[in-house]
């Protein structure tokens, strides 16, 4: 199964985050995060609970607002300008741990909702594209069902199809397999693996080591609101540079 790739990007660095700070009231969740990502790069973010992984990727499509520093996505800077925010959200897709499918809409309507209302496609065109993506994630026969009638793995694959139908260039995954039973994790990872290979720029928070080793170009390790280490998967798992990373790997590899 080979996926069609994303639209081409005309910038050298599709994600630029410079010295990003984020406070929740008094609490500083991001303490100066900087990252540059080239189009087509696949990056896996790791770190202990509460280290700011989710907060960081949620800043990248303005689900959270950063207070200091700059974020430039595919050449568009995220500011208070609502037009910029809407434009970035059209280019950046996000897949959530809890799927967040719309329970009152059928699978097909979940997927066509944004293309019809945001991209202003006709229903026919949107449905054609939606069926294409449903076929690619392997569940075209579920199009008429409601999310509540699907298994967790199927729901997450619908969520991925919903994100892809907007034709984003960048995909953000926030622990997409954490809410799934073990036998369903594989079906979702297979889809993600194929997306990674077909040229999408991906930022994924995931603890799936196999996925990280196979497709990640870089692994980023975060702790206490900072990026502690950036490394290739090979080096990261076998030969980490930082003490903090070693401690973390010891903990997760013990299981």
């Amino acid at each position, binding site marked *: 199964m080979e996926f069609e790739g994303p639209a081409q990007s005309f910038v050298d660095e599709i994600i630029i985050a410079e010295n990003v700070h984020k406070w929740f009231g008094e609490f500083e969740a991001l303490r100066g995060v900087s990252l540059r990502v080239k189009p087509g790069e696949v990056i896996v973010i790791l770190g202990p609970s509460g280290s700011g992984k989710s907060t960081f990727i949620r800043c990248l499509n303005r689900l959270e607002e950063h207070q200091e520093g700059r974020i430039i996505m595919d050449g568009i800077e995220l500011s208070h300008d609502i037009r910029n925010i809407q434009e970035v959200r059209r280019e950046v897709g996000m897949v959530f741990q809890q799927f*967040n499918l719309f329970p009152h809409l059928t699978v097909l309507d979940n997927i066509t909702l944004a293309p019809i209302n945001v991209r202003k496609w006709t229903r026919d065109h949107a449905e054609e594209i939606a069926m294409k993506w449903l076929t690619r994630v392997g569940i075209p026969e579920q199009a008429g069902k*409601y999310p509540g009638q699907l298994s967790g793995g199927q729901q997450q694959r619908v969520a991925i199809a919903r994100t892809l139908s907007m034709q984003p260039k960048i995909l953000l995954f926030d622990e997409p397999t954490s809410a799934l039973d073990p036998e369903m994790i594989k079906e979702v990872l297979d889809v993600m693996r194929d997306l990674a290979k077909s040229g999408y720029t991906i930022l994924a928070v995931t603890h799936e080591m196999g996925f990280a080793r196979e497709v990640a170009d870089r692994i980023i390790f975060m702790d206490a609101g900072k990026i502690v280490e950036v490394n290739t998967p090979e080096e990261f798992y076998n030969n980490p540079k930082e003490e903090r990373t070693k401690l973390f790997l010891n903990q997760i590899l013990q299981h």
Partner: protein
Amino acid sequence: MTQTPAAPSPEPQAMPLWRRLLGYIFDVRVLGVLGQIGFILLVVFAVRSISSNFADNAQRLGESQFICRDGSFSYRCAYDFMESESGFDISDTMIDHTNTDPYWRTFYVGVLNTLKVAIFGVILTTLLGTVMGVARLSDNWLISKIALWYVELMRNTPLLIQIFFIYFGVILTAPELNEALQPLGLPLFISRRGLNFPSLQFTSSSAIWIAFLVLGIIQIQVTSVILGRREERTGQPSNRLQTGLIAFMLIAGLGWFVSSAVSDSQGLLVTKASRIRELGDMDKLMLQRTGANHLDDLAAFSEEELDAAAFQICALDDSSSETNLTRQLRKMDIPYRIRRYEVPDKAADNYASGKCEMFVASKTILAAERSTLESPSSHLIISVKEAPIVWSLPAREGLNLVGGGRMRPEFVALLLALVLFYGSNLAEIVRAGILAISKGQNEAARALGLTEGQRLQLIVLPQALRVIIPPGIGVALSLAKDTSLGIAIGFPDMYAVSYTTMNQSGRVLQLFVLIMLMYMLISLAFSVLLNWYNEKIKLVER
């Protein structure tokens, strides 16, 4: 613990009888049956004591309650008295009603009034409640605080007090009719006599126009079928709905002209001496009278001069022929003064005595009145064309307001109080419904690039509705039943009318049974409708 089947369990034998009995009693199946038997006994007992009480009372009230028309007594004649003359007037009626009508018609007027308040009330409450519920969650500090204060104020004071306050404290302190407030210069007048507003008036030719509209609707169906067939044959897509709608508008427009042109039922009675032969002659005549070269020049005339020159017209109260004629005169800039009479004879008398030089009404009325004049042949009836629907705008005329529709102050006060009160209840339900939508739903909508309006409309409200509808049905039902509070300020709803009927006829039992049945019917109709909707939008779960 393992047990071989062969091993006799010694326990049951050893258990004393009372413990075994307790074991039976606490068996959920037994408990369920016992509970149902107990409940049935309770219901039987309650019904028995109420009905024997009822029978006692009926006995005490005597047979006179159940007199039949032939003078005999029978329970079957319990409602015969409703056919006798009611003898009282009702201030606010949607249908014609006089004090010589039977009690049934009086009751019917009351039911219509109750329905009027209930239906308008539910519609307006839905709007207000939704807006206020959304406003309470607004990021805008001022908006959310206003909504909060509204909800707290309305929810924490009794409805009856609010009705009194709005009626006596707000509406009855409004200016008199001759000084009615006109907000923003709109054709709306607020006074202590109620609210006067623009209304649509159907004329004698509207039936023809409506026939055209029906034709247009049938045409949409036919067009859709024909185009659908052609689509299948040729594979060429066509915009069926658009074609149908355009054709519909053409038909409706054609119908408007046709019905205006063929309308021939309205007329204007004039003397032959007036030299008016058709409506178009009136402007020439006006120019002669005033000596002006052009009707536009009349703008420079003083009020007295215009009064002297204006056409004096007699008309019937609330007649569409009058609305229609004056509208055409205003269009032609012809000054006129109008007198209105309740009955045609009065108008005809004044026409005969020369108080007015023309009399506008339907041709049949005019023909009848003309024959009563001294020399019918010296009078002419000329045709007045009319559009199928005319706007009737309220306007000042002397100390009075004429034209348009009017809501009485009691109706306005009751409706306003019910909507404000139940709107605050609904606002809280709407707020809870919106808050029940998880954060994730909103985030997914935003991440997909939906605008805030789209998020609210496509994701939040459809899901919130499922939480809102069941308690919302309760609000609608309470509102429908609380229309009976209208009696406190003299709004003639079903209960108020029945109350007067009770006092006059002494038939208390019959009327209460009737009232309760009607309220039950209204409530059932509401809840059937809303439950059907609720069923339709239920979530499909695994």
